[in-house]
């Protein structure tokens, strides 16, 4: 605390107004991020106290802690993973629609996820629900199941709008609204200077078009792929940022494998469809290579067309999930020490919040970099698919 107080004092003492504004902004972000996790801290502590787990002897890691106490990895998986409700804070859970296709009965059941849980002290307690069609459902490990049916033999296909899917809709909606608004500006201000949202959007689009897409693909084919790559970039970026906004449930859209899988598959399909004669010849015949080596090289080249999008998927998912896990780990630290005593928890909170703020800024950067890298690599794959024979 001392360090930070003196740091701010030092920073504030500069006479330049911009430095002062920066310091104030930093302070606001500091408080904001700190506060956004406070509800979790408070909830955790209340939970711990109720179950009487703050041990007199200070040993929180007793055998009871595993059952009822704070489990760091479970908490992290819970927050990073997908869910059937959005946890805003405390007891406030936003229910999401559950849509289930029942293979046995051949029907679709649709109901609110609020039927499947009750909120007690900030935690969900799951219960079963029988739909109007007479099917019974419950939630087990975050999955909709029919009670009594073993895992792996599930008779259900879950088409629910989960938290991540909701986040994806939200991200796409934001991208749609922002860019169609900008597009209207281009129609309205045709032949005139840009105004309003155009000025926000234009440098980004210009940057992507002139410094990423066109140099990567080449003048000839760039215009064909620009709309797709712009969509990919802005969706990933907005989705990444969405995951960093506190108080809206901690979306982990681009850290959800199902969603990044879809992106990777679309990239794979577009690359494969775009591939010209030279591209396929290069992969399947490996011209100019001695025959024995061809036997090794061709399978590798062939596999690479699948590996490339797969790597895209893993990189994005892992990076974003890792960022969330790190921030949550710092929250977890506070909760773990909070179980020893409230004061220890508060003491750890100071350091933890400082690191969270640091990580928050890193994550803001990562949000952009991952979107950039995904777009750049996709553009390079397209270039490869459209490569002309001379090179």
């Amino acid at each position, binding site marked *: 605390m001392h360090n930070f107080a003196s740091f701010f004092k030092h920073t504030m003492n500069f006479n330049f107004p911009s430095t002062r504004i920066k310091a104030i902004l930093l302070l606001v972000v500091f408080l904001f991020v700190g506060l956004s996790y406070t509800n979790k801290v408070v909830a955790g502590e209340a939970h711990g106290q109720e179950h009487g787990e703050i041990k007199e002897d200070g040993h929180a890691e007793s055998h009871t802690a595993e059952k009822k106490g704070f489990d760091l990895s479970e908490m992290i*998986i819970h927050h*990073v*993973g*997908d869910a059937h409700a959005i946890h805003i804070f405390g007891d406030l859970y936003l229910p999401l629609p559950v*849509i289930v296709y029942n293979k046995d009965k051949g029907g679709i059941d649709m109901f609110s996820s609020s039927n499947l849980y009750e909120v007690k002290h900030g935690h969900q307690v799951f219960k079963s629900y029988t739909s109007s069609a007479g099917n019974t459902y419950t939630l087990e*490990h*975050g*999955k909709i199941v029919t009670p009594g049916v073993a895992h792996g033999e599930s008779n259900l*296909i*879950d*088409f*629910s*709008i*989960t938290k*991540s*899917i909701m986040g*994806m*809709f939200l991200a*796409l909606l934001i*991208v*749609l609204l922002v*860019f*169609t608004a*900008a*597009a*209207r500006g*281009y*129609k309205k201000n*045709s*032949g005139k200077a*840009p105004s309003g949202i155009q000025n926000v*959007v*234009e440098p980004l*689009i*210009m940057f992507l*078009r002139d410094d990423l897409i066109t140099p990567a693909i080449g003048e000839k084919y760039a*215009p064909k792929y*620009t*709309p*797709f790559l*712009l*969509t990919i970039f802005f*969706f990933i970026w907005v989705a990444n940022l969405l995951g960093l906004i506190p108080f809206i449930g901690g979306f982990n859209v681009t*850290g*959800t*494998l*199902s*969603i990044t*899988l*879809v*992106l990777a*598959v*679309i990239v794979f399909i577009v690359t494969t469809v775009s591939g010209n004669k030279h591209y396929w010849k290069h992969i399947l015949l490996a011209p100019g290579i001695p025959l024995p080596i061809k036997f090794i090289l061709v399978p590798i080249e062939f596999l690479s067309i699948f590996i490339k999008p797969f790597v895209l998927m893993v990189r994005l998912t892992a990076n974003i*999930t890792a960022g969330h896990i790190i921030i949550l780990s710092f929250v977890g630290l506070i909760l773990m020490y909070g179980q020893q005593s409230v004061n220890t928890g508060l003491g750890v909170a100071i350091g933890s919040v400082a690191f969270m703020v640091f990580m928050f800024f890193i994550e803001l950067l990562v949000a952009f970099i991952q979107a950039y890298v995904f777009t750049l690599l996709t553009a390079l794959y397209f270039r490869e698919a459209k490569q002309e024979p001379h090179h």
Partner: protein
Amino acid sequence: MESLMSVSVGAVFWASLSFLIALFILKKFAWKPILEGLSEREKTINEALESAKEAKEEMARLKASNEDLLQEARLEREALLKEAREMKGNIVSNAEAEAKEKADAIVKKAMADIEQEKKAALSELKTQVAEFSVQIAEKVVKKNLSSNSDHMDLVESLMGDLKLN
């Protein structure tokens, strides 16, 4: 960890559907007008710059030709001035010469007139003197010449007078 690394059919379905719909809408209603607007504007700006450059060149050309014209005009003016100055000099000297000639002629004429008048006057005087002489002679003749010497004196004085005139 299992929940993180699992892929759900439903999520894949919704993600594909929403992404493809969004891609379609964005392509048609956002990227197309934006990218077209951008390239349109780039074209307009390039054209504007091009025409500005041309206008600048045109201006430079005009300026150069103006300069030439101005130079020409200046030379012409100088030539005109020189000519005028020369003409003025000529006129003045001509006028002077003429005036001098005229004045000379007038003086000459006046001299000639005077000479003539003088001659006329002299001849008239001579005539009158002759008349007077005749009259005097008459008078002298009419009068009794008391002496020859007196007579001669008189004649001589008269003649003397005559010569003086």
